[in-house]
């Protein structure tokens, strides 16, 4: 058959980033459970959840490679291909950080200093809220393509990007508060424990940072 039109109009790889995001979200979902286990002091649960997060990260990697594999250079996309690749990398980075949270908690069992529990749980809630916004943002890709990256769909996307940014800022503020509480308790904690706490807080904060970067990539997509 001579069907140049069918070969020309190929299925877009862009909506598949939503599949990648789903796999990443499944992995990141282990983070609040990990932190709850930390607060409860349940080390066996931490071990189990960390293993879960690690295997879910592997699954997210597999989906990521599939999406990348569906983007040969000869494709003409409505957005810059390099921006798409950067977006894929940012989505992937969230799962990497989630896995690292699990790793940090298994390397050296930590105890939560008094007065930090609620703040810590709240911080993780804010991080997860940022990820959730980013997830909804990625889900708009389909309608964004349908509207040619303009019009009402672009306005909705702009609003979502702002939401991701706001939520990341909220998460940031709580991260700083948590750090302050840790440093306040530095006398009771061993230096190594403080070091590990900072590592942990940074990894948690990075999840939100990468979610915000996802938003920034979408800002490039809709920039006229």
């Amino acid at each position, binding site marked *: 058959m*001579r069907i*140049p*039109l*069918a070969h020309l*109009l190929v*299925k877009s790889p862009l909506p598949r980033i939503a599949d990648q995001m789903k796999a990443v979200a499944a992995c990141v979902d282990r983070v609040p459970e990990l932190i709850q286990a930390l607060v409860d002091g349940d080390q066996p649960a931490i071990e189990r959840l960390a293993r879960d997060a690690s295997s879910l990260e592997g699954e997210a990697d597999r989906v990521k490679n599939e999406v990348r594999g569906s983007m040969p250079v000869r494709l003409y996309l409505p*957005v810059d291909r390099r921006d798409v690749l950067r977006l894929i990398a940012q989505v992937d980075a969230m799962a990497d950080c989630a896995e690292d949270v699990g790793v940090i908690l298994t390397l050296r069992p930590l105890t939560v200093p008094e007065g930090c529990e609620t703040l810590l749980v709240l911080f993780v809630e804010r991080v997860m809220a940022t990820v959730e916004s980013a997830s909804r943002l990625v889900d708009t890709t389909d309608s964004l393509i349908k509207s040619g990256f303009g019009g*009402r769909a672009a306005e909705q996307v702009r609003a979502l990007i702002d939401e991701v940014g706001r939520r990341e800022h909220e998460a940031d503020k709580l991260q700083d508060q948590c750090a302050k509480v840790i440093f306040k308790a530095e006398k009771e904690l061993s230096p190594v424990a403080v070091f590990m706490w900072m590592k942990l807080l940074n990894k948690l904060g990075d999840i939100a940072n990468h979610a915000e970067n996802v938003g920034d990539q979408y800002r490039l997509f809709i920039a006229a």
Partner: protein
Amino acid sequence: MESTTVILAVATLAGLYMAWNIGANDVANAMGTSVGSGALTLRGAIIVAAIFEFGGAMLVGGTVTETVRQGIVSLEAVGGDPMILALGMTACLLAAAVWLHVATYFGWPVSTTHSIVGAVVGFGITAGGVSAVNWGVMGSIVASWVVSPVLGGVIAYLLFRLLRNRVLDDDEPIEALTRFGPWLISVLGFVLTLSLLWKGLKPLHLNLPIHVALPVAVSAGVVVGLVSIPILKRRTRAIEEGGSHDPERVFLFLQILTACFVAFAHGSNDVANAVGPLSAVYGAIEHGVSEQVTVPMGMLVVGAVGIVIGLATYGYKVMATIGKEITALTPSRGFVAEFAAATTIVAASKLGLPVSTTHTLVGAVVGVGFTRSLGALDLGVVRGIILSWFITVPFAALLAAGLFALARLAI
């Protein structure tokens, strides 16, 4: 049996095969865009194609047929022997058909038009030397092969930008479309009427000069636009009552019009690929070498019937495949691509330039893609098309030259 009868029989069979091939592949590509969006069913596409291919071939197809028959190769230069001309044009049909068969087997995006033009050039050079080919005409034909996809792309790009600004991005897109749609239909009516009337078919007294044809076409466009206003309103009301606010549903209806337009444009240009050489063979055998013979109606009928048979016997498979693959081409995008391609092709037909329908349509779709409104385009296809420009003509020319040389030895 006389050798002329044999030649005519072979030429008719080869011409029919060419027409079948055109119907099975080119028409299927052209109509596939409407089937893919759901504007037409497979059966509907075959019916529309049957009617409008026929109409396009009959009413506007003569000019391109003349070009293929006697514009590319100077009939005097190949000698006064009608037998040479009959043999040569038969060789052309066979060569083009064989090349198309090979290309179709491998799925190469070659053009029927380019194959037959290449074959005719090959025959001309073999029969009458390099000077037998009218290189001026050939130059403008080759230029039109590059210009037509680009022009289709530019029109599609501009039209879709306009449509997005005026309709799709509007807060009330369906409302906007009822206001904007009649203008589009007006332009469509204008282009069609002008193509019919200006230098149209003499037997039907349609060959009006431009200063008469233009005002008539403008009024026809206005009338069609006015008539479309209530129809479009009723249509949108029915859609809104069905609870949908998707403007694509209205474009689905508009796309039926452009599907007819595409079939008409295709008929006006591509029927010549089968009929041009065939009528040359027929003319040579019946009247000797003469440039005065007009294209016999019977030949156009043969070509149009062959195309419809090709579409009905194999093209439906191609259309079904295309329809499944091109879901990204929503009715609004399909409408624009078809409108742009068909306008370009009809314009080329009026100038007597045989262009490739499929390549023009591909150009138009790429044009829509440049507005960032398609998910992804595989530019490997564009590369393949450009490659085919450089391969088809030499190959078809060599094949036709070889076949012709063999046939001349045998006679």
